[in-house]
């Protein structure tokens, strides 16, 4: 197990280097610079432009800039935003709980419905339910997020008035946020109605963000279950006279989960990407919306730092998933 752990962790290092190099290079390939965007139509004379570039360190050769960046990163310094002048790390951790809360709720939504629907569809193969689940999940998977979000807002918020349009909580609630997780902080605040308001604000964005993972998980669970249900040991279990729920729930599901867990790990990346759009539409103050702003303003340090930190989160989740395999299925651990 230890060797397995060391191998997996050592693979993380080149991944990190790749991420820093890619983000550094890619964002500099986008034309335009922060100074032009700062002054807009007003224009700036070339001397002052050069002066500001030098202040931001943008006049140095690219390799030199990258060297400085990596050196600073190794010391835990991700730089300061060229727009707000705040440390990138500070801004990230201020906003990340909002993204994490939304992503977790989206994942819980996707898992609870996706797994259940997938299992039932597999057990009742070729039934109306099966065809419906597969059809709906394909639609969900193909749905453009922004369109889906606007549709839900128009229906549930504007026409029916069941859910709020956007934000994390009603503006009438105002309290300290020690954890940054609105659900927890609203409970801690003791203000009547705050928690309910936070939950109501989470519903639509979590559904929107969870839709694609839900579709993927449902389809994956179904096909994986179907494969396992055809195995000899399942037939044996049934022949032994075990109750169908036990056969499906214990023998089949546990083995069928292995590929599903991989997919769930990969969906974390999808969730964080999806968060960028979802957060912008729902005015959700998380890192996705923050990164979009940084792209618009060519805020290089924020973009580099933000992407690096998100990549770290994705890598850690996938590492955890790899380790989880061993727990779910000892064969994998021993085979390695």
């Amino acid at each position, binding site marked *: 197990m230890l060797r397995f752990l060391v191998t997996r962790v050592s693979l993380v290092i080149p991944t990190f280097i790749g991420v820093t190099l890619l983000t550094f290079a890619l964002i500099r390939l*986008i*034309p*335009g*610079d*922060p100074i*032009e*965007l*700062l*002054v*807009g*139509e*007003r*224009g*700036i*004379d070339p001397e*002052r432009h050069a002066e*500001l570039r030098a*202040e931001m360190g943008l006049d140095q050769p690219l390799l030199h800039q990258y060297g400085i960046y990596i050196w600073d990163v190794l010391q835990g310094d991700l730089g300061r935003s*060229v*727009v*707000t*002048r705040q440390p990138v790390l500070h*801004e990230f951790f*201020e*906003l990340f709980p909002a993204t994490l809360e939304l992503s977790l709720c989206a994942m819980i939504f996707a898992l609870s419905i996706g797994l259940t629907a997938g299992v039932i569809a597999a057990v009742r193969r070729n039934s109306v339910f099966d065809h419906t689940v597969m059809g709906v999940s394909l639609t969900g998977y193909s749905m453009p997020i922004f369109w889906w979000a*606007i549709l839900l*807002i*128009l229906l549930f*918020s*504007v026409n029916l*008035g069941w859910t*709020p*349009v*956007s*934000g*994390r909580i*009603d*503006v*009438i*609630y*105002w*309290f*300290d*946020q020690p954890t940054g997780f609105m659900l927890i902080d609203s409970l801690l605040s003791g*203000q*009547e*109605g705050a928690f*309910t*308001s936070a939950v*109501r604000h989470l519903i639509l964005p979590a559904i929107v963000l969870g839709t694609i993972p839900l579709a993927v998980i449902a389809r994956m669970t179904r096909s994986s279950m179907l494969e396992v249900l055809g195995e000899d040991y399942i037939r044996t279990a049934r022949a032994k006279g075990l109750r169908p729920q036990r056969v499906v729930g214990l023998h089949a599901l546990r083995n069928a989960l292995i590929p599903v867990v991989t997919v769930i790990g990969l969906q974390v990346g999808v969730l964080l990407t999806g968060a960028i759009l979802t957060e*912008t*539409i*729902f*005015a959700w*103050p*998380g890192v996705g*919306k*923050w990164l979009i*702003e940084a792209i618009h303003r*060519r805020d290089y340090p924020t973009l580099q730092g933000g992407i690096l930190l998100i990549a770290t989160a994705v890598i850690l989740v996938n590492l955890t998933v790899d380790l989880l395999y061993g727990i779910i299925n000892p064969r994998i651990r021993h085979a390695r």
Partner: protein
Amino acid sequence: MARIVTALALGTALTTGLGGLAQAQTLVYCSEGSPEGFNPALYTSGTTFDASSRAIFNRLVQFERGTTTIIPGLAERWEVSDDGLTYTFYLRDDVQWHSNDDFTPTRGLTADDVIHTFERQLNEDNPYHELSGGTYEYFISMGMPDLIESIERIDDYTVRFNLTRPEAPFMANMGMDFASIMSLEHAEAMTEAGTPELIDRRPVGTGPFQLVDYQQDAIIRYRAFDAYDWGEPALVENLIFSITPDPGVRYAKLQAGECHVMPYPNPADLQEMEEDPDVNLLQQEGLNVGYLAFNTEREPFDNVQVRRALAMAVNKDAIIEAIYQGAGVAATNPIPPTIWSYNEDVEDIPYDPEGARELLAEAGYPDGFSTDIWAMPVQRPYNPNARRMAEIIQADWAEIGVEAEIVTYEWGEYLARSNRGEHETLLLGWTGDNGDPDNFLYVLLSCDAAQNGTNRARWCNEEFDALVTEAKQTADREERIRLYEEAQVVFKDQAPWVTIAHSVVFEPVRPEVTDYRIDPFGGHIFYGVGLEQ
């Protein structure tokens, strides 16, 4: 930001709408983005000005809400010397500063605060100059470093600006956002506490609203400042900016009653808004101009006949119908009709494709030529859809044999390249900063501007330049009007631009909002705005 744990006195109303809020007189504005900071001198974006200078701060002189008229601000009166080189401001002696968790002021506004504000931007040796990046681009682009020779403290409530040259628009400049007056005592206290940067993040101003809380990318909370009793007051107790970047979502929030006022509606939603009983769609002619500039340094645009011919071929009415959806007026002069000195007698170059063809032939291009049209990649109040506009102009020019290729770049790149003069013709525009004609005519069309890039036509006409330069240095308003009127005649005759349109600005507000006025400078101002119970 440390948050003060306070529940708004709203009882236990469990409502998502604004019914509960109205009881406590809370006005919610669905703003379009996060401010870059809270010091308006460091930034140039309207989003930052709305959140800082227009709510929290005051200036020596101000613009009357909803107009371009200069009225007394922190200075109750002022004197200008006969040679136009000295401006003496007499400050009010009853102006109080805001307080917050970190700072409680011990004195009111004095001349020291005014000097501190301008010295910070002007003087590289000022201890606060480099703070928060030290990018005073607005101050610099308005030419203030070259203009202000010195600032003198005459007594506690009198301050004098000595200028290097007479500059008539100086008073208007003093009303601009970058000239918002900051507290010296606050700066000193924060420096002593080892957190000088807080002066730009947790601002202390003199204005009608004081900042209470800012949660990045989510919400800004203000409370009416009780001691602000000398200017137009805040009529609501609480002001909230609920940051909502998507225009469609802002409209949904307005409909659902989650906000009272929203900026920048989606043009496609305007018709629905007009019919919506929950929305008052306010509109006003904007202080702006959308134009197509010819790069007059390049052939054949150095030839005035070519420029006039191409201007003659553009069907502005069709553009106004298709691009501005009727919400714009054809522009004749480079300044909008709402600005003083607008010359009513100037006649626009008429739409006449046949005449254009003849003129082009006279200029030596009977078979036309090839060129480009640069179209901005962004939507602006002065040009809601540059790409589509370029297509219409392309078709118009094709009629007279001129083949134009449409070119576009990412916005920053577009600005940088056009600043360097890489275009042949380009679409752009301008929204006024201070209501002075100089802010259009000199900033966009002078020879100085041709060198520093804001004059995208790179047009340097001696006659025009002499007129606008003289007007800039003349104190007498009547004389300035005469000079600017003459300059507009020269401009039209020489046609460095095709003046396209002055657009109408729309702002949807809920019916319970009272006396909200559209700011001609594009700002969003909430003092003097009330809510009907």
